[in-house]
């Protein structure tokens, strides 16, 4: 293998001594993630930087658990989203809600939406607004790419960590 086993060993030893719940390390093409509990807080999994590696966590965070077939499985906390099964395709990453609120695709009612499917976006392009008690929070793409899916409906309540858009990143 093209890495130093000694190094990995000492890293593991170090981590073992350290007191933490979640540990994530990225450098170049190196990525280490260690977790000591069953559920990783989405803010950990959220796209911190527009690094391609960050795609993985977000993508996985939206994989529906229960078979979306039958009506009733949608009950336990570990159940699938009600309306859309969020299945990002290869090379897509999901942009999630940074906070709970109402999802708006346009700056004002009647105005054209910030983005449509097919639009190209840059990391700082605004994709939508999440309104919390009249406070408008614009959500930037965080990555470069093309908008391929819209998961939330205009004017709908989105939860913290809830899926908003899928963006195909430019390789």
């Amino acid at each position, binding site marked *: 293998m093209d890495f130093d086993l000694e190094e990995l060993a000492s890293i593991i030893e170090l981590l073992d001594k350290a007191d933490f719940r979640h540990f994530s390390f990225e450098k170049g093409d190196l990525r280490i993630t260690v977790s000591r509990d069953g559920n990783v807080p989405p803010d950990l999994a959220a796209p911190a930087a527009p690094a391609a590696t960050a795609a993985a966590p977000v993508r996985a965070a939206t994989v529906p658990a229960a078979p979306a077939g039958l009506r009733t499985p949608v009950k336990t906390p*570990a159940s699938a989203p009600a309306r859309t099964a969020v299945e990002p395709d290869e090379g897509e990453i999901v942009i999630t809600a940074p906070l709970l609120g109402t999802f708006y695709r346009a700056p004002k009612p009647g105005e054209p939406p910030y983005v449509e499917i097919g639009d190209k976006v840059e990391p700082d392009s605004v994709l939508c607004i999440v309104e*919390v008690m009249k406070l408008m929070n614009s959500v930037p793409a965080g990555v470069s790419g093309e908008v391929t899916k819209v998961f939330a409906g205009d004017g709908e*309540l989105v939860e913290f960590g809830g899926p908003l858009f899928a963006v195909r990143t430019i390789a």
Partner: protein
Amino acid sequence: MSRQADRVRQRVFVANRGEVALRIVEACDRLGFETVLGVSSADRDTLAARRAGQVVVLGGPHATGSYLSIPSVLHAAISTGCTAVHPGYGFLSERADFARECAANGLTFVGPSPEALETLGDKLSARELAESLGVPVSAGGYAASVAEAAELAARIGYPVLIKAAYGGGGRGMKLVESDAGLAEAWAPASAEAEAAFGDGTVFLERYVTDAKHVEVQILGDRHGNRIHLGERECSVQYRYQKMIEEAPCAALPQATRERLHDSALRIARALDYVGLGTVEFLYDVRRDELSFLEVNPRLQVEHPVTEAVTGVDLVREQLLAALGEPLSVRQENVRLSGHAIQARITAQDPCHLLRPSPGTVKRWRPPVGGGLRLDSHIYEGYDFPPFYDALMGKLVAWGPDRASAVARLGDALADFEIGGVTTSRDLLRSITRHGDFLAGTVTTHWLNDRFNDLLGDRNE
């Protein structure tokens, strides 16, 4: 025709977590109310989340972004069509601004009026209210300067406490023994209060060295009915954290008990109090003297001991009172029966000064015997998170008298199998077997003093 059809279908937003969220959901279920639970992203797998009618993720694991975020909670409650908000205890339960926002948005806040919350949030104004009603308070009061403070202290006599007006529950207090100490502590105390509570107001109070913590459960409705449901004793505390609570307080002479209840009702009346509240006092056993501490305008962690001796479902009464129903019980119908004791089982390590010990609960096998009640959100395999308080469950034992209730609690703690996390179970058990506790002579500093001896007793 369904009772529901007669009135608005209630949907209650539960703005809390842990065992109290479960308690509230259960009470709503039985009343036919729908529930919506707001959780942090770390609380998706809690038992309350499994029980609630609907669950919304408010924010990340840290309470500031979820359970303490007023805009998030309000937005979630409004957009899920809730009619009322139950704040539980802690978090937003005593926030007057939150209560106002609820009202402004057509949500019934399950608690007293914002005005009451404001008066009671300021411990100095609460003290002044009590004084004005002839409720006993310990000597002390406001001082504008060190000079004034020293003068006041001279009258009171040392030791004295410097208390932050917006502290409470043991927070924002300084004990000083002399003029020198006072002069030294005064400025910092105010500065710290400013930093911690956004208000530097402090006041002085005589320090009662050896007292029991007693408190009265009050309950009011929107029709002018206000009753008390007897008192509780919560003297077993470690650094102001209550660990064992009981009802009634066996050490009180009947005359003092009546004075206590009457004082609590006076305060309730003055505030036109709606819902559940607890009026806290210190009781100096030697002098047979009561002194007002503060009012907790919310559901209390130790409410089950009062339910056990009165038979009244406090959470149900609180919900219905907030929604405008008259109380289902009158003062003359409040009959006390037997004695009840509650032990707070926490994920804390007694061998390390009760530091938090989160982790996966691998075994959770509570006893189910008669006279026992357990309020808990724990299940086997549950990952106890590090982000919140350490309470795992409240084990309540009832008996016809104090001795039998204590014995039952001790046996139940012994039979309680918990694995995977270190808990306070054994410490609690050794307290229930200690001579001082059995004799009922424990005062609020007892556990702080005896802590290490009790650890020795842990393994039998």
